[in-house]
């Protein structure tokens, strides 16, 4: 039993990172009602940008993160303004196809530039751990992931619930036409929401790049994780994203410990199916969302 403590702690900490991966998708999917299939690829693009900053420019991973994360806001804003908003005018389905196209393009551009080799952002913290007991230590990179994930969720939660822009995002997602009648430029609001979503993806991308190896085709893998997190936690719920991340992280790491590493993903998705069967709107989601 005591040997389960380490995977449980690691699973909870990994949940914070998973929440950071999912929060942008949750914002767009649950609030703006747009399924951004390129979310994972944008995240991995941030991982590669950080890698370039660290390896080519010689910055520390933290400085690289500070440089890369704000760069992704205008990228997301522009993507929504010049590509997705145009598709959105034709109905809710075209943006999904367009996002899939962006995903494929990004993967192939990354493949051309960086080759298919596995990469990771070299960071000293990746090998550090804080010993707690003889059988338990806390990996610093997981602690960082958890802390940053919780901070990102709190920031997005405050933004959506407490600010003028957040109110406009929620109003536009509920009733676009009435929101326009209230003086809200809904297309601009969608651009801001996408900018924020891609910024959170960039934060997750830097953390993932420091924690795991990544490839040009890693994006869809993280997109699946993000979907799992928001389905378990509840669509559109920021605190639900954290709960979903922790449940998925726990299921994967405890499952891997009990049944073997080959069963890690399977255990995660079995829990996802179980949550869907028992509580289809997620742990903290509302039935009508």
């Amino acid at each position, binding site marked *: 039993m005591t040997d389960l403590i380490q995977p449980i702690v690691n699973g909870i900490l990994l949940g914070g990172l998973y929440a950071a991966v999912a929060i942008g998708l949750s914002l767009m999917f649950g609030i703006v009602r747009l399924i951004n299939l390129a979310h994972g690829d944008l995240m991995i693009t941030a991982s590669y940008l950080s890698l370039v900053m660290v390896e080519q420019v010689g910055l520390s991973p933290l400085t690289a993160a500070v440089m890369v994360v704000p760069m992704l806001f205008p990228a997301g804003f522009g993507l929504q303004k010049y590509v997705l908003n145009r598709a959105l005018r034709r109905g809710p389905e075209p943006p999904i196809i367009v996002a899939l196209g962006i995903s494929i393009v990004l993967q192939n551009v990354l493949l051309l530039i960086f080759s298919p080799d596995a990469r990771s952002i070299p960071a000293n913290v990746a090998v550090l751990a804080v010993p707690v007991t003889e059988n338990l230590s806390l990996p610093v990179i997981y602690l960082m992931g958890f802390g940053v994930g919780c901070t990102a969720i709190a920031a997005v939660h405050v933004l959506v619930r407490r600010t*003028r822009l957040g*109110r*406009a995002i*929620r*109003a536009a997602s*509920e*009733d676009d*036409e*009435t*929101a*326009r*009648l*209230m*003086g*809200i*430029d*809904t297309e601009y609001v969608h651009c801001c929401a996408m900018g924020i979503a891609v910024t959170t993806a960039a934060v997750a991308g830097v953390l993932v790049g420091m924690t795991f190896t990544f490839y040009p085709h890693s994006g869809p893998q993280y997109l699946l994780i993000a979907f799992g997190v928001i389905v378990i936690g509840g669509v559109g719920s920021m605190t639900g994203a954290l709960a979903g991340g922790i449940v998925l992280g726990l299921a994967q790491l405890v499952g891997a410990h009990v049944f073997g590493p080959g069963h890690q993903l399977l255990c995660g998705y079995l829990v996802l199916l179980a949550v869907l069967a028992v509580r289809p709107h997620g742990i903290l989601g509302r039935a009508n969302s």
Partner: protein
Amino acid sequence: MTPSPLLNVRGLDVHYGRFQALFHVAVHVAQGEVVALIGGNSAGKSTLLRAIAALLAPSAGTIVFSGTDLGDLKPHQVVALGVSLVPEGRHVFGSLTVRENLLVGAHSRRARNAIRQSMEEVYELFPILRQRANIMGNELSGGEQQMLAIGRSLMSGPALMMLDEISQGLSPLVIKAVYRTLSAISRTGTAVLLVEQDVRRSVSVADRVYAMVRGRAVCLGVPGSLTEDDLKKACFGFELQGARSSEGERS
């Protein structure tokens, strides 16, 4: 010399695809005036309001508000100029609280003091909204939602307020209260363009009345000059003998 109207719609055509909904509509509203727009179902009343609010693009004609042509503007820009629309069916934001709904109504304004003052004015007009400030929009009764929809619209500080079927689905007591509020709003100098199927009630508060008949606007004149027969004909979409077309009235 007649002052130039606050809103001046001239020769307006609107199409839904190949179907023409409005034909050369001409309507004007002066500052502080209450204008009722009556007519049967599918006469084009709501279409006219949606075109003024820039939700529909006209295929011909001009809409000038306070000297500005609204032709190429987007709905949020029209709101910023001082035109607000209370849509048919209320459309309050159910997942936002009453207070948040009101703040969304003030989205086009930046000055916090002005927003706070407008909110106080709305709470004075509809005291029940103050009591329900932290309740979700979808938890309000129909009457409360209508009050919220009107209050939310007032939050943008409009010079012209357009209201579409505000009595729909409400009890007579609530309708009476809502109409009392309309009179109070017009006394502040805000012009009101009112679309209603409850003809008698809308005419009772109006300074002038237009009838929409099969996509054409006809100016019936001032309420005192209208007979019961005129109103019935307007409601059922019959041609109105002796009524001047709004184009004719302006020419």
